[in-house]
């Protein structure tokens, strides 16, 4: 059976052992492929599953994608426990080891710069959700007496919609304030598109979906400050913290690909 090389991440050489029994996307344990001052973390995958054509089909298969994405993330996660990896996008595949080496050689300088920038940092994800149906709270008219007149009814409606507006205003202020204060502790920050609750399964509406690049040394502090803000009296607003992740959201930008150079000057012709 022909096998190909699936690359999870690039990092600096390291001594620490990876967790035992770690398996990659096709059940093959990840191996280290050193080249110069870099190491590619690869595993062998069957061509039957990772040829162009096979991949195209697989990527449309949610179950396959889920399994592969989790396996990819698991390897990157194991690396994050021992070093600062530069995570690659899902399904970066080469024919053989020498193809991987050539890639490392060609991008050595760019990888080096990015790894230096990310060194010692992890990524934390912070999301703010607004609970969809705020209890018609705050409305002073408690479990509402039946409106005595059309005017009362209108007044109640107005109060309810004001409570909703209040919630959105508060949520926006809260998210802005949270993002600002977390950005102070972080080396860098990225705002991502809000997640659709039907994909994430999270309740309410996602109003902030941010990633923060945080030094390991201050990660504890960072987490505490998220916890503190989350515990503030903020009915209807929920804060969700995920991490530590490898610095996925910060891996791209300076990677010196020609495309990126162009991206930096969107208005100018090359």
């Amino acid at each position, binding site marked *: 059976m022909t096998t190909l090389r699936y690359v999870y991440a690039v990092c600096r050489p390291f001594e620490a052992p990876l967790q035992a029994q770690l398996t990659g996307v096709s059940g093959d344990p990840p191996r280290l492929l050193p080249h110069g001052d870099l190491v590619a973390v690869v595993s062998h995958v069957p061509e039957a599953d990772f040829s162009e054509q096979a991949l195209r089909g697989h990527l449309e298969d949610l179950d396959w994608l889920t399994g592969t994405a989790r396996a990819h993330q698991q390897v990157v996660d194991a690396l994050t426990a021992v070093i600062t990896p530069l995570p*690659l996008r899902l399904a970066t595949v080469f024919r053989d080891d020498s193809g991987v080496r050539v890639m490392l050689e060609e991008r050595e300088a760019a990888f080096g710069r990015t790894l230096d920038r990310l060194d010692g940092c992890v990524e934390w994800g912070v999301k703010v959700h607004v609970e969809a149906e705020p209890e018609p709270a705050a409305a002073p008219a408690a479990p509402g007496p039946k409106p005595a007149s059309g005017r009362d009814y209108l007044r109640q409606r107005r109060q309810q919609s004001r409570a909703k507006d209040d919630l959105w205003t508060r949520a926006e202020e809260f998210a802005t304030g949270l993002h600002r204060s977390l950005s102070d502790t972080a080396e860098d920050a990225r705002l991502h598109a809000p997640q*659709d609750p039907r994909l994430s399964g999270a309740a309410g509406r996602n109003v902030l979906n941010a990633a923060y690049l945080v030094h390991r040394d201050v990660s504890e502090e960072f987490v505490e400050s998220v916890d503190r803000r989350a515990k503030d009296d903020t009915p209807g607003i929920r804060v969700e913290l995920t991490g530590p992740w490898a610095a996925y*959201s910060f891996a791209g930008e300076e990677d010196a690909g020609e495309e990126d150079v162009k991206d930096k000057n969107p208005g100018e012709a090359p």
Partner: protein
Amino acid sequence: MTTPSRLPDPYGQGQSANLADILERVLDKGVVIAGDIRINLLDIELLTIKLRLVVASVDKAKEMGIDWWESDPALSSRARQDELTRENAELRERLRELDPGRVPREAP
């Protein structure tokens, strides 16, 4: 290279991590390198859009600004119609160049 210092315990991660969080990172983020096996990134982007469509209604998708199918002739009869109209206009134009005077200038 610094050795990682102690990290806080993971939050919402590992085996229990939300699929949306994982896909967001491994499909949308991370370094993009063209390997020997060329996967058209457009395919992947298409997939993530499809994923959203799997779980979101069409109206919701439009609300989110996702409306690629509207201009894809394979998926939308309106786009097919538009394409036909454009093709007709192009043909008319070329005919007119070949034989001015015989083809009416006016497009539908």
